[in-house]
């Protein structure tokens, strides 16, 4: 199969556990997997945030200053820079009172992609279209 679509579903918040951050970094690594694949083969993850996973996506994070680690905000900007599709569940943002403009973009780094706020049905569709679904 030339292209394998994946749905990465992040359902835990950032910063307590590591798993939700690893979802982001593993998704970004789709850029370098081609060195292990045959010509024309690709892996395309969609990074989706649902439930408590939508927490921890806000702008203004101070992870480097306070804990000496890369912030999720920074990882999200890199995600957009490498042209990954990022879907965030609208119902869950509403549930937790998070406005869409509280989330980062990577405009200043020249990224064309933006975080897409979508109803859960779109995330369900991403899961159905994917060959594999990975929950983080």
């Amino acid at each position, binding site marked *: 199969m030339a292209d394998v679509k994946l749905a990465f579903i992040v359902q835990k918040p950032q910063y307590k556990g590591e798993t939700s951050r690893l979802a982001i970094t*593993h998704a970004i690594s789709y850029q370098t997997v081609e060195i292990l694949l045959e010509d024309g083969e690709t892996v395309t993850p969609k990074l989706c945030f649902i439930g408590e996973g939508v927490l921890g996506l806000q702008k203004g994070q101070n992870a480097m200053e306070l804990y000496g680690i890369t912030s999720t905000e920074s990882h999200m900007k890199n995600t957009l820079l490498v042209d990954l599709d990022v879907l965030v569940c609208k119902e869950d943002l509403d549930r937790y009172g998070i406005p869409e403009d509280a989330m980062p973009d990577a405009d200043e780094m020249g990224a064309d992609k933006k975080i897409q706020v979508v109803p859960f049905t779109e995330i369900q569709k991403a899961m159905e279209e994917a060959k594999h679904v990975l929950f983080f």
Partner: protein
Amino acid sequence: MGKLALGCYPGLVGNMSYDFALKLADAAVSKGHTVSIWFSGNATGSVKSHQKHLKDYSTGEKHLLALVAKGVEICTCEACTVARGIQKPEGIEGVQWNAMHWYLGKIHAADRVLLIGGE
């Protein structure tokens, strides 16, 4: 027969999801399936050799060696592993070291993928 790509992120000690991953891998390879295991996060601490098996704690080494002997490909995330103070020469023989794209490569070829998230 199929190909199963397991991702295992929980730590060896303190989380029995790790034990589940290894038992499932053993059951699958024993039935003739091709199995790979990717360790990331705290699971990477389990690739250090010379583990002492105390009965209050799960042990990984003897199970990992047995799985490697059965043909299971096991790879640890190098960055996660060295971040935990483990260097390659200290690692269990037969366990590969690589970066996250190794897992995506295995996923590309897999019939089934099970990602067991960690802490």
